[in-house]
């Protein structure tokens, strides 16, 4: 009886752990990224293939755009507000992100790289 209870408890713990793992996997990783003329706060973002990620984006001075063309995602930033962009990279590699709203003479410099690693 005691052995059976122990087995049931172990199974429940295992199930619980698996459930917790699934819940953790489903929660996107959050990465903050700021934009200001004419750079993003990070030149490189590192994420994992197959894992959802939420970019928490903000702009200090202009309605910059944020775009990762290779993943077909983009959003307009609103100065003074945060905007969230969630996506799941389905390929490993290095991919350009950029401001895609023309913001001035340094607009072409507002780029960075998303590094997607294998999980």
């Amino acid at each position, binding site marked *: 009886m005691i052995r059976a209870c122990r087995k049931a408890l172990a199974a429940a713990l295992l199930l619980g752990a698996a459930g917790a793992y699934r819940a953790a996997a489903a929660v996107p990783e959050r990465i903050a990224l700021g934009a200001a003329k004419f750079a993003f706060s990070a030149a490189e973002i590192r994420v994992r293939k197959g894992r959802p990620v939420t970019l928490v984006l903000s702009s200090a001075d202009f*309605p910059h755009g944020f*775009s990762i*063309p290779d993943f077909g995602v983009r959003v307009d930033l609103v100065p003074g507000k945060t905007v969230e962009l969630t996506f799941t990279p389905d390929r490993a590699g290095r991919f*350009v992100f950029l401001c*895609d*709203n*023309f913001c001035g*003479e340094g607009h*072409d410099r507002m780029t960075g790289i998303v590094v997607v690693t294998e999980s």
Partner: protein
Amino acid sequence: MDGERLSRRDFMKIAGLGGLVFASGLPGCATRGQAGAQSDFFFVQLSDVHWGYNNPKVNPEARTSLRRAIAAVNRLEEKPDFVVFTGDLTQTTDDPKVRRQRLAEFREQAAELKVPAVRFFAGEHDASLDRGEAYQEVIGGPLRYTFDHKGVHFIVLDNTSDPAPVLGAAQVEWLKADLAQRKADDPIVVLTHRPLFPLLPQWDWATRDGMAAVEALLPYRNVVVFYGHIHHEHHHRTGHIEHHAARSLMFPLSPVGTAAQKTQLPWNPAQPFDGLGFRGIHASATGAAPRVREQPLAEA
């Protein structure tokens, strides 16, 4: 993407011509061009002047490049019916006064062109930061418009006066309404600044909703698009519609596929003005595909 790159070699091969003259790849263009010789006309495309640009490592002749091009156009043996500047007349600036000053200085120089007419429209450097206010004040005229010349219908599309690289739903509807008045075989030339197709969105070489315009144009058999923005010669086809990017008069940008990131190519003292230039275009009301002559500024 429904499209294909036409390499310069392919383009020359299609045209069956050597040197700097070539025709676009629409079938039968040579014979139709000959048949309609009486209605042929010639115009010149100048692009991406970026007046006010200042980086001697890239162009130490920034103050003379436009003057050189204008002098070359004025010397052409075959006189163009008109010249069109396809955007980025000036280098952008946050200062509205400087923007107006640059536009005015550009306009004064463009007035030296000895041609019957000069057409303009804005690039993002001219218009994006104030939605075309200074451009319209100094250069004048609408941001999008149409005109007809010797039986060819020209459509100027504005994909730069919004900070976002878009045409906008209203302009797409305006285009459709204009096209509804055309016959399927009318010769149509579209002039715009950015590529309408997604050439390389990673380098901001695209118009987000540009394919809506291409879709609207596809039912028309004789359509060609001339644009600027990418600062080098490039030829591409979406369906039967050919898209031809022009060289800049200020600085060349690294061609597609030749660099990891968009790069202004440095000045080559051994070959001054290398990579800069303009183009002459022979068009025809017969529906013959336009014939294009690239003119390097170094040889001008």
